[in-house]
């Protein structure tokens, strides 16, 4: 069963939708688009982190990076104090560049510095969070130019959703239709063999880290465009959500395996849990347990595979 994981995720998404429909008959039509839109930052970054995990590395700095980039964008483009009010397109270009460069820097630490990626990105997670707070200084930044907000709130055409679909489709094509994608899988599957096959492991890893940086920048831009507000807490905790989505989506934490479809479904699933719980009449007491319920559901999602596969013989690791 090649698409076993995807199938079970679809079943789960269906089950949750059905559950919510019991409480509100029009749940699906009323919320489908909004759930997708709300999942955008997670979705876009998950595409990058998925590739990183497929190469056998991990990036847990994306939450802080998103925060830092959002703060940078805000400072550059906001029309009120303390923003510089430079043209939004220029600001976007700068943020994309900065994001890519930081991603590349992370890659260099991992590839040339040979710092284990989980440690390098843990250090960055802490340090970039501090840098974000440092940049933000005074308080929330609002007052963004209309060109920028339009990316997130253009009512008739959800530009951000279209962009996200492009990113997801691009990642899918990259994975399955290009030589580079093949090499990403090969590097994660067997690094030494990849080297012998003439693949540059170094370049491949640098590429996925830089790409993740750039995707994080795109997510940061869309985040600002959507919410119109940047604070010191922007992006906090996003990295864990992203990693959760990627692994629930069936990407092997050991590298080499995983498909974009599973990740997309997992992002939708994890984003919709909140909305479904909001639509169920949990009552004022139960709502306090919302985070615990989410936690249990994620634990179940992460471990369920192992429970079902346990009895199969000869499971080689």
């Amino acid at each position: 069963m090649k698409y076993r994981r995807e199938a079970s995720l679809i079943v789960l998404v269906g089950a949750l939708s059905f559950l919510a429909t019991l409480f509100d008959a029009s749940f699906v039509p009323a919320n489908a688009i909004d759930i997708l839109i709300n999942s955008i930052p997670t979705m876009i970054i998950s595409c990058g982190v998925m590739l990183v995990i497929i190469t056998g590395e991990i990036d847990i700095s994306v939450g802080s990076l998103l925060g830092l980039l959002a703060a940078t964008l805000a400072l550059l483009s906001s029309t009120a104090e303390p923003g510089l009010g430079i043209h939004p397109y220029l600001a976007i270009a700068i943020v994309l560049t900065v994001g890519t460069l930081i991603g590349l820097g992370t890659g260099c630490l991992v590839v040339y510095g040979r710092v284990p990626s989980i440690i390098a990105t843990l250090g960055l997670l802490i340090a970039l969070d501090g840098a974000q707070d440092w940049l933000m200084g005074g308080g929330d930044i609002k007052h963004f130019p209309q060109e920028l907000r339009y990316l997130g709130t253009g009512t008739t055409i959800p530009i951000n959703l279209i962009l996200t679909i492009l990113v997801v489709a691009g990642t899918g094509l990259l994975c399955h239709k290009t030589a580079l994608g093949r090499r990403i899988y090969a590097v994660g599957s067997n690094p030494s063999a990849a080297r012998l096959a003439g693949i540059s492991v170094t370049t491949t890893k640098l590429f996925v880290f830089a790409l993740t940086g750039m995707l994080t920048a795109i997510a940061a831009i869309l985040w600002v465009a959507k919410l119109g507000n940047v604070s010191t807490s922007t992006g906090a905790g996003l990295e864990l959500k992203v990693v959760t989505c990627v692994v629930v989506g069936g990407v092997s934490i050991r590298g080499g395996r995983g498909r974009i479809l599973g990740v997309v479904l997992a992002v939708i699933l994890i984003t919709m849990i909140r909305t479904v719980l909001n639509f169920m009449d949990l009552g004022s007491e139960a709502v306090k347990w919302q985070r615990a319920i989410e936690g249990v559901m994620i634990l179940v999602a992460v471990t369920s595979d192992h429970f079902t596969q346990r009895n199969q013989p000869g499971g080689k690791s």
Partner: protein
Amino acid sequence: MSRTSKPLITIENISKSYGGVQALSKVCLNILPGEVHGLCGENGAGKSTLIKCLAGVVSPETGTITVDGKPLSHGDIHATEAAGIAVIHQESTAFLDLDLVENLFVGREIKKYGWLNRRAMERQALAVMHRLDVTLDLHTPLREFSIAQRQMVEMARACLRDCRLLIMDEPTASLSARETKTLLGLVKQLRESGVSVLYVSHRLEEIAELCDRVTVFRDGRLVATTPIDQLDRNQLIGQMVGREINALTRREEHAGQTDEVRASITGLYSRGSFSDISFEVRAGEILGIGGLVGAGRSEVARAIFGADRYDQGEIKIDGASLKKGSIQAAIEAGIAMVPEDRQHQGLILPMSVSENLSLTILTEITRHRLIHHGHETAQVQHLMRRLAVKAANAKMEAASLSGGNQQKVVLGKWLAIKPKFLILDEPTRGVDVAAKAEIHRLIRELTEAGMATLIMTSDLPELLTLSDRIQVMCEGRIAGQLDGATATEEQVMRLAFPRSEAQLT
């Protein structure tokens, strides 16, 4: 076969050292077009390093390599490929998560307008599989293939390119006799079509059958390059080790064998792996299990040792039945196992020789719940002497030992528990001739002292010389039993092949 005097590849004065150890020193060698050139030598003699230099994986410190008179730039995989050199490396270069087509084309995908051209790749894959006469599903991840099938994929990968020199580093190490035969046939076919082959193997039979010339390495130096027809087996071994080795002789009588049943296995069954496995091993007896790779031998060994679970059946050691799926219980009952994969299952490479050797006897060397270093050292020294492990000292990392010495350490760590029943799964794979002989001697000695031994091996001469009795497995079942003293290779092979195929051959 046309022999032009002009060599395809000329290697001159290649030297390479790793951290002070001279792996290759001033090696000169040439390979003629259309010849199969054998490369022999004990482990650590420098064969693999030479291959890596040729393949562009490592760059030699001095010397030149020329292909058709044109110098090859060092350490450049792509230049090597462009020059028409293909390598099948010793360590597995399979990408287990990728499917067959993806594996074949990794690193040199066929593209059309920048996108992968899947159809063209599938077409070429089918063509090459046809040429190799193997049928494998193109879209199954390699994880689901057997070791031998993976080896075939590697062959196919090398054949895919129009290479002029194919380097094969112990390609048959994990292949069964039948698969080896297919492979040798294929090499001959390549030779016919004018491809040169550099063939590395420990199996002298293959060298003799296949090669035109043989080059022997010892301690990083080239000893001699000799046409095969001017060399006999013992001379070859002599060149390799620098001294004479007593060739293996078949066990003449069942010395020390008793009627006391050590291990009895009845009706062992594991879904999808093996069924109906029943046999007994007596104290002082060596039971050999032959069969093709993938016949289920390793799986049986693992099940007995408790490494895998099984669905039905019973294992008794000295009459007491053994708990299922627990290695600790097996060890307590006196079972020891030298596993198939030395690097991953047998040894902990980054740990010292001493720590590896004492891993199985931790409770024994513990006093007041603390490890007693005096006891540990004493035990380790004793084992190292007994097995003649060649290591500078016991604190050396196991990774720094040669393959043969590593295998001795694995054996040693099990001898430490004084096992009643020893299971050996491919005990001499990738082990040089001298170490192999020592390991064989040791197995016999121990068995004669009253141990029961079960040996699984793809190496037919080893199976025939060591075993008192031979059972042959085929497709997860025991196909038949032979007497060790009289069995022949043909008898074993006949039992090893599935019925339908046996008729064909």
